[in-house]
């Protein structure tokens, strides 16, 4: 996943402004910029390609729905990542089922065999974590957010982020 460029906040603000002005390059720019990142976060949370794509679509729709109420003092990408994690957690709750190892197979679908092998290893390990712990791992290791940013997104104390991450890493180390 590409690192977020330094000028991200300013570029996002510009794109949001373009959206609110009704200019087509606004939403196109935001979708172009974030759809792949959000898809990957959702995929790691859900372990299913189709579900991840559905969540990505829903997040964009919801984001545009609420764009007028979006407070620009917050970072746009934090806001939209938060929506992605929450939407993924909600989907997991709605399903009310444990994701089985067979479900992880879906992660392998888009890539060649080599990539599938790598993702299979990590994907299986991730899906054995509790969803809340998984969210912390995904935001930290797959989206490179800081403890404070993760705490803000998930609305939990920084100390909780650290403890969840510590526990989750222990489990992942044992699995991998």
């Amino acid at each position, binding site marked *: 996943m590409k690192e977020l460029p330094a000028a991200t906040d300013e570029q996002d603000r510009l794109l949001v402004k373009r959206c609110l002005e009704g200019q087509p390059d606004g939403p196109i720019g935001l979708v172009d910029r974030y759809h792949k990142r959000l898809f990957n976060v959702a*995929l790691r949370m859900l372990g299913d390609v189709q579900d991840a*794509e559905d969540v990505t*679509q829903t997040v964009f729709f919801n984001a545009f729905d609420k764009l007028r109420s979006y407070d620009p003092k917050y970072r746009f990408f934090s806001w939209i990542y938060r929506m992605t994690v929450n939407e993924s957690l909600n989907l997991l709750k709605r399903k009310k089922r444990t994701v089985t190892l067979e479900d992880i197979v879906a992660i392998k679908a888009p890539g060649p065999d*080599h*990539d599938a092998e790598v993702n299979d290893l990590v994907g299986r390990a991730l899906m054995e974590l509790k969803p809340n712990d998984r969210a912390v791992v995904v935001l930290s*290791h797959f989206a490179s957010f800081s403890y404070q940013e993760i705490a803000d997104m998930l609305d939990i104390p920084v100390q909780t982020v650290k403890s969840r991450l510590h526990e989750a890493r222990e489990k992942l180390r044992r699995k*991998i």
Partner: protein
Amino acid sequence: MNREEFDIIRREFDGSNSPEESASFRSLMEREPSPHLKQAILEAMPRQTRSFNPLYALIGGFMNRKTMILGGAVVLAAAIFIAGKVTGWPPSGDKAGTIGGVEPAARYKGRTMTEADVTIKNPEIQTLFQNEQVLNLVKSDAFREAMRNQQFRELMASDAYRQIMASDAYRQIAASDAYRSLQASDAYRQLESSAAFRQLAAQGAFRQIAASDASRQVNASDANRQAINASDAARQLQASDAYRQIANSDAFRQLQASDAFRSLQQNDAFRSLQSSDAFRELQANDAFRQLQASDAFRSLQSSDAFRSLQASDAFRSLSRSSELSDVFMREAMRSQQ
């Protein structure tokens, strides 16, 4: 996976990767979404890109729920087909013992036995009429009313209905465990009996969507899904209170999450039925819409006895034969007298 890649993964979770190595880890783990995803997102919000339209936001929920809504209609329709099978409609005209009159009970009073009556000895028929619930059902006001419903008769006499009933796809669906399980679920019953569902199904916009070419091919491509979502009919539908009530209801969510519903959605026969011309015509049929809205039919559908009948092996066997359905219907008529 080579050794170096494995080490990067392992060290990432050890917390010992450098920033550059962490970036390599993320690059290694990154997956490409479907090439259609970006286009799907953008195409579903054309109004948004031109001017900010609050209604646009509603499409969001529709995107992922659309198929489910349509699927719900299919399931509802399938229940109606089964009911039609029980009652023996549509009349086949030249076939002895077929039922098609407005006053069926009177028509068959005192009628002489035909060759078809011999099939009363059929074990499935006998099993059904030995079942107290079935007897109670055929004697019920709801059953009687449904049979006398003008829209019901029109529907069952339509070519679309005949074609669907003759299709392998329908038979497979009616016989599938997923369909039976779904119909027996509380969530489905709640949804189906809700006023919101009824209102939604009765809307002209809903019928436009159901009858559209895109809807017919809804499982075939993302482009068709987008075409539906971009349509005025879809927007009207999503703007309705009924749609929002359904989409936000616990029953609908439970239904979506159920294994039976997912299984049915993935069923080839279900998809085949949904994409057929006959089904499309049926969805656009006025009689079908009015029937769905009728109290008599809803009452019939929601009765335990009717569901029990639908779920029985004897009925499933019977429903595959028009002759046996006719015999069953005649016996039902006699029971009502």
